[in-house]
């Protein structure tokens, strides 16, 4: 992770002779919490935050119109190179106790890395990770659902198969019993049957014929 992927290049600047009121005006207008102070050549020389204005201007009595950026700015600047690893910059923020680091390219002001921007950027990445995880879990659940349905179907099929087999056995039993009794009837000599009908019919038959 390089710093160049995490910093903003639109930086609000003001000259060293800007008044405290002008700095506050810029902070309000551009909705930023700091203004980078530059010298006449445009090189960054210091930084003033909204907090600096409160603690170094409003907290002191006297006319704020007479206070210039040069008197209240924090300097020397904590800086980073755009090619530096962002972890290194975060480390520098921690040791210097600052939330904003000015990014230089070839010694010129190139942008600003802020803790807030980093949190937003990391938050976006986390959001992506969260979304990816949610989708993975969902597709796993769907897969699980498909597997469950297949298992259900297999269960039903095997139940069906065994009931078909059972039914087949019953039919086979019935048929074999039928065949058996049919064979019995065919094999049985006439008249000797215990069957009343057969007996009756046998009795009706003239014995001398066979």
């Amino acid at each position: 992770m390089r710093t160049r992927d995490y910093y903003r290049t639109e930086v609000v600047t003001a000259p060293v002779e800007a008044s405290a009121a002008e700095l506050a005006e810029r902070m309000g207008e551009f909705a930023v919490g700091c203004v980078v102070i530059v010298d006449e050549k445009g090189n960054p020389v210091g930084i003033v935050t909204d907090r600096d204005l409160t603690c170094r201007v409003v907290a002191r009595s006297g006319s704020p119109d007479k206070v210039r950026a040069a008197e209240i700015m924090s300097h020397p600047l904590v800086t980073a190179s755009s090619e530096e690893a962002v972890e290194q910059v975060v480390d520098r923020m921690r040791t210097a106790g600052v939330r904003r680091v000015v990014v230089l390219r070839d010694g010129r002001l190139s942008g600003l890395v802020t803790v807030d921007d980093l949190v937003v950027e990391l938050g976006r990445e986390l959001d992506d990770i969260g979304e990816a995880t949610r989708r993975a879990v969902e597709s796993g659940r769907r897969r699980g659902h498909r597997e469950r349905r297949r298992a259900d179907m297999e269960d039903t099929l095997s139940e069906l198969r065994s009931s078909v087999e059972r039914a087949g056995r019953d039919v086979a039993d019935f048929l074999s019993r039928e065949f058996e009794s049919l064979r019995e009837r065919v094999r049985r000599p006439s008249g000797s049957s215990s069957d009343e009908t057969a007996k009756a019919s046998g009795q009706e038959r003239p014995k001398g014929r066979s």
Partner: protein
Amino acid sequence: MPIGDYCQRDVHSIDAHETLRAAAVRMAEEGVGSLVVLQGRQPRGILTDRDVSLRVLRDGLDPDATAVLDVLGRDPVMMHETSPLRAAAALMRRASVRRIPIVNAKEELVGVIAFDDVLRLVASELAGLAEAVASQAPPGRAPVEPAAAPEVE
């Protein structure tokens, strides 16, 4: 996780009738970026260093003649101490604030939850998760027992 268990109980506050100058002095002396504005024991809102600098230097309010209550919004954002912690981040997002006063059933101030506190809690949870992930070696990298040398017939 009720928010009352996580908020900072040591709160820097200022009376609603104090001036913006007094608030700026307190912020500078106490090394804080915001103060809970109190009327009695009930919070009326939060005053930040940004509020002070912009209202005085940009808008030209007289810091010695303006009461802190006069620069606060009408609808203070607050949370009850029994609210869940996760609701804090959602409320911060909705109300675009970074600090929320936490109150008890009588709406008296008991603490403050700041964006930084929530961020730290989330970060430590994430670090725990990251460790859990790291401790589960991916299948491809699972330590494999060295295969026994094939026996020669």
